[in-house]
């Protein structure tokens, strides 16, 4: 995990573009069944805490279950693609929803309003057991991660067009942009629901960290343009602008645009055309004054 991951395990440009537009990417059943079977015992026993920003090596030393999880090639590749090598561990948590337990949370963004536009944290969510609709997996709203809101300021948004409820097979790992709007749902099943979460902080500039071999694939632009129910009217173009800004950060390409919105804004020519050089035009007149 702390060494560089083989290129073949990194995310592709199309997958990164999906992350930029949706605010998440899902790796279904990437954790082997044998590990999923051990996970519950490990989570029930508890995973030690540590200070914010602890290096990964210290938080999860080799030999621990979590380190084994993070060293799985697909998981390590996704982490390196999103936040780079040697990330720091912000915090972790095991969330358990008991059978027929809990109330639906109000919709929220985690932590506190995050002002960064040139970096982001990623949250890993690992589900060691199948998550069914009845178990009330996390509801999230794709595409909301770039909207600056504070915590549960969005608490009165109960439903948004395009929202999704996580339903996944055991061994699924989801990666979420820190800003995505979401909420835990009530567990209406007879089975407890387990989720293990780790928040990663980058320690390098998040520039071209993934496998960029497919950077010119037309599917990249298609992913970046992904529409959602709630972006169907006035908010849609603003979302495209913000995704284009993030893609500029990630690729280093300051001329990238999804539509023409950012490009048009930069059209501020300074060259004075020859026909406009008559300095006598309106040059030395002050305002007339009251009753002048």
């Amino acid at each position, binding site marked *: 995990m702390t060494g560089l991951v083989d290129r073949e395990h990194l995310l592709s440009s199309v997958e990164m573009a999906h992350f930029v537009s949706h605010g998440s990417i899902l790796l279904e059943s990437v954790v082997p069944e044998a590990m999923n079977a051990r996970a519950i015992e490990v989570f029930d026993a508890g995973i030690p805490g540590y200070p914010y920003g602890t290096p990964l090596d210290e938080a999860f030393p080799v030999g621990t279950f979590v380190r084994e999880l993070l060293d799985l090639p697909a998981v390590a590749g996704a982490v390196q693609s999103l936040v780079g090598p040697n990330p720091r561990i912000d915090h972790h948590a095991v969330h358990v929803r008991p059978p027929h337990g809990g109330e639906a949370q109000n919709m929220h963004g985690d932590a506190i309003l995050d002002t960064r536009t040139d970096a982001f944290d990623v949250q890993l969510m690992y589900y060691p057991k199948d998550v069914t609709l009845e178990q009330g997996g996390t509801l999230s709203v794709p595409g909301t991660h770039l909207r600056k*809101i504070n915590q549960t300021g*969005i608490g009165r*948004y*109960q*439903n948004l067009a395009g*929202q999704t409820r996580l339903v996944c097979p055991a061994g699924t790992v989801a990666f979420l942009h820190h800003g995505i709007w979401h909420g835990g749902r009530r567990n209406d099943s007879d089975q407890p629901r387990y989720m293990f979460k780790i928040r990663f902080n980058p320690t390098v500039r998040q520039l071209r960290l993934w496998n960029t071999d497919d950077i010119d694939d037309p599917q990249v632009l298609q992913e970046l343009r992904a529409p959602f129910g709630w972006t169907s*009217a006035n*908010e849609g173009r603003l979302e495209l*602008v913000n995704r284009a800004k993030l893609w500029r950060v990630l690729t280093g390409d300051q001329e990238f645009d999804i539509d023409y919105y950012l490009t048009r804004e930069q059209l501020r020519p300074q060259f004075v055309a020859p026909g406009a050089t008559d300095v006598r035009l309106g040059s030395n007149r002050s305002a007339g004054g009251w009753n002048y």
Partner: protein
Amino acid sequence: MTTTTTSVEAAFAAQPAQPNLRQQLLILYLGTSALDSNVIGWTRYDGTGRSRPTMGDSDEPPYATGLDALLDGWRLIQLSQLQPHQPGHEYDVSYLPYEFVFERLVDISA
């Protein structure tokens, strides 16, 4: 003229004019500031206590547009102001801007 006052608690404990009525609220988030634009988000609160709407309780909006809610008898009691874009932050995105709050009064004795 002398005015006799009572405690705030006593005044506010008085029976309402129509004690059998409760408020139901419907909050619609629309695609634009026009009431007849499409619903992109929706929320309900039930003052009757007979239901408990929560986050993620439905994937289809109760109405296609805000106007459809009016046609079905909901009364619009508030709509969001149109805020100018802050210079330098015109492209910034945050809370949903077009919020419409509706109510209807329901007879709980029925």
